[in-house]
């Protein structure tokens, strides 16, 4: 007997709905095994990871806070991936957006600037991210260079650039030599939504972005163009859609969203610019995009779910001494299962009898 893949005549809609759930289920099973290998109580670990963070208001807010950048970045990435261009450099665009917006905060720090500062910072963050994303886009469109490699290399560059800035020209003179800028002024800080809590304005932004993306992709001709360019490039050309323009557009939007998320993160929950302020949101957002199957609402749910695992991972480290790397492993395995289950949308797996030898025809 042998397992073979057979293409389905049409996408299976039932599988499309159910596959993320199957993937999550399989991942949990794998994690139970992993916890057991690590010598931790699996049931307790699962509870600390997935249930506990949902039980008190503080961690619920934290989930939303962590989900905000994930969702914003992932929406941008989903546009690129739908167009079949692989923006891997979201982390770099995230950092550069933070840097671009922080410039204004650092410049106006201590001066009595007006409330225009924060909106200006946000605009600069988005613009910075967009421009940084245009580098790999233009390298691809004009020169044919792989956007995967160029966008990724630029992540390392962005990281080093940020490091240079906060250790050098932007370092807080009163900061005891720590590599960080001064704390941002209140006008340069993203306002909190509920007094005393952690939920900030960025969450509203994220929701708006989700809504806008949903409308664009399902109802607007531009969304259709993006989808066709990714699904059938020659048909897109036949339809009159300019794939180069669309590639540049999706990268620009993605970069802008990542950059915006970056400055919001720095001007919000963190409050100042420092190296390593990002726990790899740009990369986790890739998983969010796939888990949400490149669909805005799916991404919202997936972002919340992954944020949950971040919080759970932190708590598990404190409560059960489970290393933080386990969260990364979980995310990687989850992505694998999601991709594997998604394959069933397009293909069927069948058992085929090999009582007659299957044609192999070796050389």
């Amino acid at each position, binding site marked *: 007997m042998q397992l073979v893949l057979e293409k389905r005549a049409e996408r299976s809609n039932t599988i499309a709905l159910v596959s993320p759930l199957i993937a999550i289920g399989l991942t949990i099973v794998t994690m139970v095994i992993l916890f057991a290998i690590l010598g931790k109580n699996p049931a307790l670990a699962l509870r600390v990871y997935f249930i506990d963070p949902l039980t008190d208001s503080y961690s619920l807010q934290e989930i939303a806070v962590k989900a905000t950048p994930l969702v914003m970045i992932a929406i941008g990435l989903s546009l690129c991936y739908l167009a079949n261009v692989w923006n891997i450099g979201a982390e770099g665009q995230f950092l550069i957006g933070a840097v671009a917006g922080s410039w204004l905060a650092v410049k106006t720090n201590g001066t009595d600037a007006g409330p225009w500062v924060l909106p200006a910072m946000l605009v600069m963050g988005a613009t910075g991210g967009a421009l940084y994303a245009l580098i790999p886009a233009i390298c691809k469109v004009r020169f044919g260079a*792989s956007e995967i*490699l*160029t966008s990724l290399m630029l992540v390392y560059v962005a990281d080093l650039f940020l490091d240079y800035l906060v250790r*050098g020209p932007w370092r807080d003179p009163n900061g005891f030599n720590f590599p960080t800028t001064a704390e941002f002024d209140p006008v340069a800080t993203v306002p909190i939504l509920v007094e005393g809590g952690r939920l900030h304005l960025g969450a509203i932004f994220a929701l708006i972005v989700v809504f806008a993306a949903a409308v664009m992709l399902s109802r607007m001709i531009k969304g259709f163009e993006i989808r066709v360019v990714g699904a059938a490039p020659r048909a897109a050309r036949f339809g009159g859609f300019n794939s180069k323009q669309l590639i540049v557009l999706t990268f620009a939007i993605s970069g802008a969203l990542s950059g915006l998320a970056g400055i919001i993160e720095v001007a919000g929950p963190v409050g100042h610019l420092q190296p390593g302020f990002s726990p790899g949101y740009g990369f986790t957002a890739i998983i969010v995009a796939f888990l949400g199957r490149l669909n805005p609402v799916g991404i919202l749910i997936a972002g919340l779910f992954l944020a949950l695992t971040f919080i759970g991972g932190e708590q598990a480290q404190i409560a059960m001494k489970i*290393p933080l790397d386990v*969260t*990364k492993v979980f995310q990687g395995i989850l992505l*694998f299962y999601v991709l*594997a289950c998604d394959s069933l949308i397009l293909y069927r797996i069948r058992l085929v009898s090999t009582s007659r030898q299957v044609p192999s025809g070796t050389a």
Partner: protein
Amino acid sequence: MELLDPKFLESVILSILAASTPLLIAATGELVTERSGVLNLGVEGMMIVGAACGFGGAWLTGSIIVGAICGIVAGALMSLIFALMTLGLAVNQVATGLALTILGIGLSGLIGAGFVGERITPAAHLYIPGLTDIPFAGRILFGEDAFVYLSLALLIGVWWFLYRTRAGLVLRAAGDNHVSAHALGYPVLRIRLFAVMFGGACAGLAGAYLPLAYTPFFIPGMTAGRGWIALALVVFASWRPGRLAIGAYLFGAVTILQLHVQAFGLGIPSQFMSSLPYLATVIVLVLISRARTGGSTAPAALGNTFVPDR
């Protein structure tokens, strides 16, 4: 130190060789994978797992060889996961490669957690009395560690395999046109499976080189993007083994030279110098893509999913 002092030059060349070796090994493996038509972006993940397992194996047994084997096996197993997904389930290769990298980084952190801070005796360097003592050329030619010689042997072996054996011809055919290869009766998926696992084994070995010979300890994230640079090298080499060696040594040179320039204290921020290898990769990719006149030199079927019809 005088720039042209032979001793200084010798040590620079030695360090370039050392820095280039992991790039060369990983890129050689990926070259074979891509020539068969598969794009495996998970090289960084496989390398770093190879580093963790390689160090662990050597530290636990005291043998560099065991460490190297652990690295190879780890890389091959990681690539097996990739193969099951992309070849078995026809999953998109780009997404799977990324997932492999993310998983690899996480796994290596878990595995390596127990070894951080430990040290081992690094791989021995060759010593042939008389030959190795020749000033300047002696240590470069006859005083390297086994990995360096292995990397060159691997490259030559791959070249010979691809262009002088029938199996290599079949592999190149599968990467050029998997539909034709299948129609002629060749087991495309099986060929690709071997190519992918070879690439994984190489990536694991390259990763293991870092804590076994380059620096005698393990730090999480010690690959620092070398896997990605190896991928760029394959493009730079236009998928041909000869140019791969040139590319690997060039990149090794950039990595080493920026360290020396930093040491000269020219006032250039260290972060800028450290970013040179990455910037160089971007520039090289742009230049190489522009320079490609005529047909694309990439294997025509690269990255395309193949599901045989029955």
